[in-house]
């Protein structure tokens, strides 16, 4: 059995009288320690999929098994607990708490779980040793995203979910961030799911899941993922 099983998931948004099928019988599997890229155009349902994986959204029907546990059956507070202990999130717009320094942002996440990593060490790892006492407004976009990743990893999650992590960054910085994610996946053995519309990024993935109109169009296994440095876009 796979580490993550997405089984015939439907997600319907009720917008007034119009029903929008964000996900339509979407199914896929992810193995433990895999770096997966979910690819697709805007509105294909990839972010919805990520939100469901992260316990931020509920399914209309279907099952989502993570490590054998069906997260669609969780109650509200169980879902918060799931987010708290099992999930790390990285967003396009970093979503750092402006009022906290880099270190404090990591500490903010860390204070939630017992089995966490040392915030200082994690910030060292993402290369922010010098800047950990700066506020987000004093950091560049790339640095802020590093803090966001550090914050996500420090919780020692089972699953790291990244929603367009490079979307707001230039190529160079974006690559650095992807590199960091790749290293994290391989060194820390954390399963990572990256959602993007940039197909170039897909080359670094172990598995590529392509979304279109709410359904999984194609699942590609990449036996030889390219190192980030070699990817060009």
């Amino acid at each position, binding site marked *: 059995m796979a580490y993550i099983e997405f089984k015939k998931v439907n997600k319907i948004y009720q917008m007034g009288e119009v029903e929008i099928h964000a996900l339509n019988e979407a199914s896929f599997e992810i193995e433990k320690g895999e770096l997966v890229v979910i690819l697709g155009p805007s509105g294909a349902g990839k*972010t919805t999929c990520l*939100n469901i994986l*992260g316990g*931020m*959204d509920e399914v209309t029907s279907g099952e989502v098994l993570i490590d054998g546990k069906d997260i669609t059956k969780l109650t509200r*507070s169980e879902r*918060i*607990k*799931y*987010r*708290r*202990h099992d*999930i790390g*999130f990285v*967003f396009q*717009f970093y*979503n*750092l*708490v*402006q*009022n*906290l*320094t880099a270190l*404090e942002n990591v*500490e*903010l*996440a860390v*204070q*939630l*779980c017992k089995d966490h990593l040392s915030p200082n060490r994690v910030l060292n790892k993402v290369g922010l040793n010098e800047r950990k006492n700066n*506020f*987000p*407004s*004093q950091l560049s976009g790339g640095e802020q995203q590093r803090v966001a990743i550090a*914050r996500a990893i420090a*919780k020692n999650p089972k699953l790291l979910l990244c929603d367009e992590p490079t979307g707001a960054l230039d190529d160079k910085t974006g690559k650095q961030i992807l590199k960091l994610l790749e290293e994290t996946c391989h060194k820390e053995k954390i399963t990572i799911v990256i959602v993007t519309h940039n197909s170039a990024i897909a080359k670094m993935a172990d598995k590529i899941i392509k979304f279109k109109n709410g359904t999984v169009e194609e699942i590609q296994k990449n036996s030889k993922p390219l190192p980030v440095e070699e990817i060009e876009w």
Partner: protein
Amino acid sequence: MKKNRIVTNSLRTIKRSFSRFLPLFTISMLGVFVFAGLQSVKPDMLKTLDQFLDEHQFYDLKIVSTKGLTEDDIQALKNIENVKQVEGSYSVDTLIQEEDYEFVINISSLPQKINTVTLQEGRLPTSNQEIVVEENFLKKTSYKIGDIIKIDEENLKEKEFTIVGTITSALYFNNDTINQNRGTTTIGMGTINYYTYVLESAFKNAYMNAIFVKANNTEEYLTSEKNYLQEVDSLIQKIEAKKPEREQARYDFLYQEIQKEIEVKETDGQKEFASIEKKLNQAKQTLNTNKKTLTDSKKKIAEFSKNLETMKTELETEEKKFQEVLTNMSINDLEIESLLQKTNENITLLNQQLVTLKENSLEYQNTLKQLKTLEEQQKNLLSLQNAKIKIKEGKKEIEANQKKLEDFTNQYQIGQKNYQKGLTEYQNSMQAYQKSKKEFEEKINEAKKELETLEKPVWYIYDRSDLTTYQDYIDDITSINNLSQIIPVVFFAVAILVSLISMNRMVEEERIEIGTLKSLGFTSFSILHKYLLFSSIATILGGIIGGILGIIILPTMIFNIYSMLFHVPNFKIGLNLGIIFFSLILSFFCIGGTTIFTVEKVLKEKPSELMRPKAPKKGKRIFLENCKWFWKRLSFSNKVTFRNLFRYKKRGIATIIGITGCSAIMLCGFGIRDAIIDIANLQFKETFHYDGMVYLNSEKPIDSKLFENPKIKKVVKAVNQNVKVDNIDAILFAAKSDEIDEIVNLQNKENRKITLQKESVIITDKLADLKKLNVGDTITWMDENNNSYEYQISGITKNYLNHYIYIDEDSMKTKSNTNSAYLKLNDMTKEEKDAFASELLNHEEVLNISYTEDMLLKVKDMLTSLNKVVIIILVLSAILSFVVLYNLSNININERKREISTLKVLGFYDKEVDHYITKENIIFTLFGILLGCIAGYFLTNYVITTVEIEKARFIHHISIYSYLYTALITITFTFIVNFVIHFHLKKIDMIASLKSVD
């Protein structure tokens, strides 16, 4: 018509941002509600009272005289210019005694023109045997309509009256819920309990007790208006001008009347005395006749007795002779008859012999000789027999006469006794006659002397403000009005803050739109226009609703509270458009002003700057972090909270100020309660130590045994005088300096005892404050006869109600008679108290008695009504604090949606998210409460000083509980808001808010 899309945009904004519209609307509603509502109270209540008074044709002036008033007075008053109506009134107070209770009723003549009554039930009296009573009379006694009240009153023609209906009179619109008090009287317990009316024709009085006057042109003005006072003052002056003439007329009339009365009495008396004298003379004559008769009979008795003695002597002599003869004959008186018989027989025998014998024979001769001797013997014996009978008869006669004499003597003695009796009687009645004649003459002389010193009648002219109830009503309204000038200021201040924050947030959220519009070439004004329209609609709509609700609800509520004190029906809600308009402008000025201020600030920025999203507020280290010792000890989440506190300074300050304002008002409400709630206790328990006060008639001698009663522990006699210190009414209280401590607790501000010294006075603190007097200064006052007195102040004593000047009795320049006595009593039940009171009132010199306990209840009752005003203040400030907290919290959440979503994604539990946000609220609230208590302290002092009535000293001390309650209520509201906020937080959609760029 070209459509203005800016307006479309504005209207759509309002529709969509209802959550932003609501606080502006609410805060404007509240501000105008409080302002317009409180402002309306005074005019509405005045108008209501005035209408009530007008409906009852309430008098403008009331004239009473010390010697009664007459029809002539009415005529004279009618002739005065500007007098519309004049009506006299007869009245009498009488004690009604029922089996287990007694009460005093005032019976007045049913007015036709002035102070007319309103019929509540039944009908008005149509005959002299009918009476109408106030409603409470039936409610509180066992009488019903149709029942008969027995009234024994010499001024009334009838003795029994049938109750035919109930009425209300505007003269008595005080609504005393504890005591049934319709004024004071000199009978019963000293209080009139109920008012009643009978027909004027039911009275026998020779004069009227009062005359009521209504002026022209006064009905159209409110009683408190300047115009009214002017009209009435000018009328008073006209009446004052007529007054001496009328007083003199009444004096002359009374003088003549009394003079006539004295004359009549004198003549009557003299006539009566003359007849008595005549009778006495007759009696004397009779006595004299009797005396003569007695003397005569005495003489006769003496004569009779003398005759009797003579007779006795004669008889004795004869008897002696008779006895001598008997002795000579040596027989006793009893043998006389037998001897005589024998002799007679012998004579007969001899005569027979003689016949047989020859004449001249010896024998014959012897026999003849014998016969002759016998015949002589017979003759002697016969005379003896006669003498014996005579003696016997004489004895009998003497005996009869003796008896007669005794009878005569007896009769004489009786006559003598009767005569003596008559004489004493005569002498007694003579004495009595002389005494009564002397007395009568004295009386007449006294009456004549009294007539010469007959006091001139004095007219007293009273206007409406002299009616205590009316004045109380006005004073109370003024207090409320003073409140209405302070509280709304705080409300509007908070309103400005809330709208400032709200508009600021709105403009911030729409900066891109503003930038777009600006880049499209719209003028600053047309952009401002939208926000101004938005806030104006919110303000004006809220203001109109608040204003309408305010002028209806607040005056009605306050009126209802006061209706416990005053029975004025039919509350009139005035449509005070001016007040609403003014408060709308005020509200608009506050909220519109802040709108312009905020928008102008944003409009100064370049469109390009505006279209770029505003960089999120930078995080900053706060000064507290420099204090390593403190910072290190904080938990991580507390550190975050502290940073956040300083991050959103503006909102934080607004929250703090908002809460400060609300809790200040709340504390002020509690403070007012504290200020008044204890006054009664402090005055009647701490300051005064007596249990009862007896009003004495200073012109009558006081019975030395009056206060010899086992129920009285201690008596202090005193002189009470009403005096004026400039325009302030005070009570001059004179007693012995060593006794005064027994009944009054004289102590200065520092709670140190002060004693009354010779030739100086102690005054009460409020009087000292009002007149700015200190120890050592000189105080001047005028007594009722306008004599002026000056004394040095030796002390200022704590006091709470009324103003007192304490003076040693011996130091008074004008000596006055004792007119009051203060009693310390043993514990008594209510029945015992009533009995004790009527026992005292039976004494002629006792006018009235009042128990301190009753006074205490009365004052407490009055103060309770103010308590309810406090509740209104509390409710309003609570609502305000809720609006402020809720609105600011809401803005807080909206502003920080992204941060909150991040926390949620990170896996913060709902509770942890709540804490993260509400901890700030709680800290702001605590700060607000702290500042509110400080601000409230000053606000309360200010409010109490403004609201404080002249006659009372409020307690300028806020109890610790008031601070606690204020804090607790505000904290409770914070928790309620936090609870509501919890649901808002729960509802935040983290996905949506994380995606967006803010």
